[in-house]
């Protein structure tokens, strides 16, 4: 039975883009090479891109979680083997600051009608259109409705409320731990991300925009980090090695009662093949740091860029991207992610993300300094969370690592 279901699911995934496809009629020859991260939505878009393959046109999409290293080197070279790449808020910043991205204004004008390009898909830096966004995402709060009801708990509005709820849930034998969050993750990126979420909601900033000097190590930062330390008391002792994938499994396996998780994962809670808590998980915006403050989360978008130094034809690459992200693909695959296009029909799974917008959650800061600060923070705050040193010391170490990286990147001059 399970195997049958798996087969059916697999067939559905493969069939989905086929249902969506009017045939792709790009009249071009040569090659389009794309490099992207690897997750479900990008896999789908890559399959749709392949529809444009013909005798004259070869399309190759490399899906890899190591996309960043390759892209940085390719876009900085004299000629890039990749004609397009998928990026997000954070990864676009350095490419854009270095002037490596091709402005897409002319192509957007030319193909606006043919592909029904909508304004909200255009990522603008000033007048320049640098990327075409297809999906949005934000982390939010996941909780076990049944357990909240059992203990008479309300959805926490602030992290102080969350800690109160955690104390109550600590005594519940049906879950191993009250709370889960990605406090580990590859390169400690996810650990840094949780700090950034809480810091910004706490009124803090990562750096001074005029000098690029770090400011995340101020009192708001120390408070944010100390909160993470308190949360850790209610999480699995293994939490410092957990990434978002493990948090999802913990939720699906009924090991935890509350979590912070990406919004596009909401539907997986009700996937009977993976989850034993189908129908029991509720969604809400992340808790705030202050009463009535914004939720402790940031908004992300994912989109495609074309480098200036591509070795193929930018117009063909652009058409392939637009073919993959057109309205029909959104309509045929509505629930797999949070699409940016207006024909996306929000479901119960995207409500928490929409509520986060209404509660004024900020976009992830699109500055190259953020990426460097984020990395340095993730790499250093583990020492505090692991009980090796004080929060102040960890953040001071992070600030000094960030300065060093910013000097190497030419963003701070000594």
């Amino acid at each position, binding site marked *: 039975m399970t195997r049958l279901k798996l087969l059916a699911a697999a067939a559905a995934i493969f069939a989905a883009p086929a249902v969506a496809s009017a045939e792709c009629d790009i009249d071009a020859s040569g090659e389009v090479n794309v490099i992207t991260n690897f997750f479900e939505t990008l896999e789908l878009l890559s399959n749709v891109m392949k529809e444009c393959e013909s005798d004259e046109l070869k399309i190759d999409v490399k899906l890899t979680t190591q996309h960043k290293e390759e892209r940085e080197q390719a876009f900085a070279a004299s000629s890039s083997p990749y004609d397009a790449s998928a990026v997000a808020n954070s990864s676009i910043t350095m490419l854009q*600051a270095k002037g490596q991205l091709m402005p897409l204004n002319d192509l957007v004008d030319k193909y606006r009608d043919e592909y029904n390009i909508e304004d909200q898909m255009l990522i603008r830096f000033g007048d320049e259109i640098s990327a075409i966004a297809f999906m949005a995402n934000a982390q939010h709060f996941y909780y076990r409705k049944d357990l909240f009801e059992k203990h008479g708990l309300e959805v926490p509005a602030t992290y102080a409320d969350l800690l109160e709820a955690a104390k109550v849930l600590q005594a519940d034998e049906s879950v*191993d731990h009250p709370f889960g969050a990605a406090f580990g993750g590859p390169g400690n990126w996810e650990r840094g991300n949780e700090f950034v979420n809480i810091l910004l909601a706490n009124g803090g900033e990562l750096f001074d925009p005029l000098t690029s000097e770090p400011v995340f190590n101020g009192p708001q930062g120390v408070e944010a980090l100390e909160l993470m330390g308190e949360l850790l008391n209610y999480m699995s002792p293994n939490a410092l090695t957990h990434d978002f994938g493990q948090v999802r499994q913990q939720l699906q396996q009924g090991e935890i009662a509350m979590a912070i998780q990406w919004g596009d994962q909401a539907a997986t809670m009700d996937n009977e093949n993976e989850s034993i808590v189908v129908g029991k998980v509720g969604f809400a915006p992340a808790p705030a740091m202050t009463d009535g403050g914004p939720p402790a989360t940031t908004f992300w978008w994912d989109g495609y860029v074309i480098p200036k130094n591509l070795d193929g034809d930018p117009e063909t690459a652009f058409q392939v991207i637009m073919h993959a992200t057109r309205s029909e693909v959104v309509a045929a695959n509505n629930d797999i992610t949070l699409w940016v296009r207006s024909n996306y029909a929000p479901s119960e799974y995207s409500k928490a993300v929409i509520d986060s917008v209404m509660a004024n959650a900020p976009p992830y800061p699109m500055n190259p300094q953020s990426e460097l600060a984020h990395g340095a923070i993730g790499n250093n705050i583990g020492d505090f969370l692991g009980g090796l040193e004080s929060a102040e010391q960890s953040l001071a170490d992070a600030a000094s690592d960030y300065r060093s*990286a910013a000097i190497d990147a030419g963003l701070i001059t000594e």
Partner: protein
Amino acid sequence: MKTKSFLAFVAPSVATMLLLIALPLVGVAYLSLHQSHVKTELVELTTEVPLIGGVTRKQTRVVPQSVLGEDGKPIQVWEFVGGRNLEKAAELNNLAKAFASPRGDPGEKTYLARLYREVTNYDFWSALEFTLLYTFLTTPAILVVGLALALAVNSVSKRLRGTLVFATLLPMIVTPVVSSLAIYWLFLDNAIITNFIEYLGLGKFYFLADKFTIRTLIILYGVWFAAPFAFIILYAGLQTMPRDPLESAMIDGANKWQRLRYVIVPHLTPLLTVITLIHVMDAYRVFEPILVFNADIFANSVQYLTYYTLAFENNIHKAAAYSILTIAGVILILVPVLRKSFREYRIST
């Protein structure tokens, strides 16, 4: 052999080594002595990004933007920085400060304890600590385990040997990232082993929660992964073991242990040296389990730092500096082993 024909024979391999080993090394050294970036200036810019359902948000902020040169292209700055990358990679400045006065920590009273605490807080030195620990614990372990396996397989009937050799080699055949992941998955929350321990009534055990268990797991993984390599070489060595000395030893009344200690091990010594040499090089570059366990506060490695700097800091120059430090470390550790085998070689010729 004439010098001329000798040169003709080795020329292809010398050329290949120069091209594929020496040249990249020179390149890495060159990169580590430089630093490069695109010249930027701060510009006030309005960015507009999508949130959801057609809602977008505009933000005006000061953002670094590339400065264009006369040719209309962004200006690339490429500068010689000498030892700065190496100094930053090894955190020499901090090290000097730490020695002068290590950070006060209420828990640690003595100078040495505080010094250890601070020095192991620096990426390179904490990575070096675990790298050395891993190297010096796994090397003797794989020699012992490899020898034990070789003796065991050698003592079973010939019909079974082929299957046993293959089964023993399996850990070495599996790709390291895959086998690291397999081990990691065994020890996660509610994984097979943790569940089994709970089932036995021993309670919940969190293997990834502290330094000691994570380090133990990674080192055990290292032994499991590399012992087959020692095994196969030693097993081959055992096949060359002449029967005469063994039989003489038996006539002289040597027991099993004495035969092993005084006849078999001396016969295998050159092989043990080769295994040590190769494994030390491999172990010093330990990477996959560090990447997979993702617990660099507890266990880090010098090779992982190279990767981290390249992948997450996108700083090819500092990553090159870490590579140089890795190579220097390997050479330093190998010198005693190489000197020993060179001396033995001189004695034997």
